[in-house]
């Protein structure tokens, strides 16, 4: 795994391409899920979101996707361009709303599911009804997208037969078609073996430099954070700590949240 960082933790975005969350609040059935969440995500940066179960990590991703009602603001400013407010109906003007790619927490497929990778891909990216045989041009299109994640050979496999790592790569290829401005990944490393994990992280690293993407992912795997993340956000309904991986992982907030004992001079 290469170790690349361009993590200057600038707080202001100036003219750079940037996703800004400011004072974000999400309530579900009256219960606060997220309160006053604010941070910036720059293009070309990989930011990891960590926190205990039920901390609101998935809800935060869904708010950015515009699938949960929220108060506060989420804005995206392309390099040098004017800011676009997400989730705002006036922001949906064609060509201005940023494209958000989403890799969901591994969906489960029955082993016998008669759904091939090609079916799945074509259903998500075209209007061709996949209950009919898929024409060659869509097949080539899907193969080209899968090539981005080195997965051309998976095209005719049933979705249910893929390993955790292979499934993540297929979902990633789908999220990259069309190439988004922001890429959100929900627990991409869970259910993936060590080799698959390295492959996936290398791929993300490759993608952000190739396409200047902002990559935002949730994870429970703290061991690899320092190798790939430019910035880590510790969340438990609110932002407890944000900064470089080493800053967050050595903070008292981190230890307290995960009930770890600190080394010398620490607290329980």
């Amino acid at each position: 795994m290469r170790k690349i960082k361009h993590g200057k933790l600038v707080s202001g975005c100036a003219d750079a391409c940037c996703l800004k969350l400011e004072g974000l609040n999400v309530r579900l059935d009256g219960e606060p899920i997220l309160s006053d969440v604010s941070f910036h995500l720059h293009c070309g940066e990989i930011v990891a979101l960590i926190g205990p179960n039920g901390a609101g990590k998935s809800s935060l991703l869904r708010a950015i996707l515009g699938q949960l009602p929220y108060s506060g603001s989420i804005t995206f400013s392309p390099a040098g361009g004017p800011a676009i407010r997400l989730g705002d109906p006036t922001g949906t003007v064609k060509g201005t709303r940023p494209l958000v790619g989403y890799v969901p927490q591994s969906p489960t497929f029955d082993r016998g599911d008669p759904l091939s990778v090609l079916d799945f891909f074509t259903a998500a990216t075209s209007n061709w009804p996949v209950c009919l045989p898929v024409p060659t041009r869509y097949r080539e299109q899907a193969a080209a997208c899968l090539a981005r994640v080195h997965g051309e050979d998976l095209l005719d496999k049933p979705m249910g037969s893929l390993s955790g790592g292979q499934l993540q790569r297929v979902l990633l290829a789908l999220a990259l078609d069309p190439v988004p401005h922001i890429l959100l990944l929900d627990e991409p490393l869970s259910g993936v073996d060590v080799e698959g994990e390295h492959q996936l992280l290398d791929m993300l690293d490759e993608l952000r430099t190739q396409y200047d993407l902002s990559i935002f992912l949730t994870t429970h795997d703290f061991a690899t954070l320092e190798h790939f993340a430019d910035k880590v956000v510790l969340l438990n309904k609110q932002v407890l700590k944000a900064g470089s991986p080493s800053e967050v992982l050595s903070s008292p907030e981190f230890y307290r949240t995960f009930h770890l004992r600190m080394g010398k001079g620490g607290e329980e």
Partner: protein
Amino acid sequence: MMQLWYFLVDLLPFEWAQTGSMYFMKNALLAVLVISPLFGLLSTMVVHSRMSFFSDALGHSAFTGMAIGAICGFGEPTWAAVVFAVVFAVLFNLVRRRSALTSDTVIGVFSSTAVALGIFISTLGGRSFTKFNSLLIGDILSVDPGKIGLLALILLAVLALWAVSFNHLMLSTVHPALAGSRGVKVFWQETVFSVAIAVVVTLSMTWVGLLVINSLLVLPAASARNTARNMTQYHLFSVLGAVVCGVAGLMTSYYLGSSAGASITLYLAVWFALSFSARKKV
């Protein structure tokens, strides 16, 4: 249209296919050729989205709709049943969306309420339930050309629905949030699909029979899943199995005098057993 059909059937070498007689059997055969692909097609999605219990509940609600239609004095209680089933399907989707309960529990709540309401209404004032017995078994031989035309229109409508929204519906069942992120209106997809099942189940109940109608929505695709490796094969096997078993079941019921719906279901069960023994190894 019907003249052309009768002309074609007359060419068949069967006892009932002789010119100028047994029109009920010829009508029934045409009805089976329309109903079976319809159910074969819907079946793929019922099984894929794990809604087999839901379609069963819809059958029960259709009977309740008939009872309501009958008590309100409609000459054709089927339409009251269609309206009731559609309301049932929409209401179910709304509750499922807002409730923290799992689907099967919500279905159980709706299903038992509908059945109780149906029995309550149909036995109100000490009336006998027996007039509804024919609905439980169904009678395909009573179908008339007008009804076949209606079913054919519905088959066309479902084909159109499949062409337009099969992809979106399939993605919605795989992962609602992923589908949403790609612009799919998940709630609407699910609602339109359950309304489609509601209409089809209600309109064909009279001929297929309430007790076995759900088997037509489960068995074709369940058998197809045993062997299919992609969506095209899945649809092909499901529709083909439904049509072959539909025709075979009707023939058997003619020669043995048994119920057509039950005969078709038994053929489908055999079809399932065969495909199970030839199932793919994954």
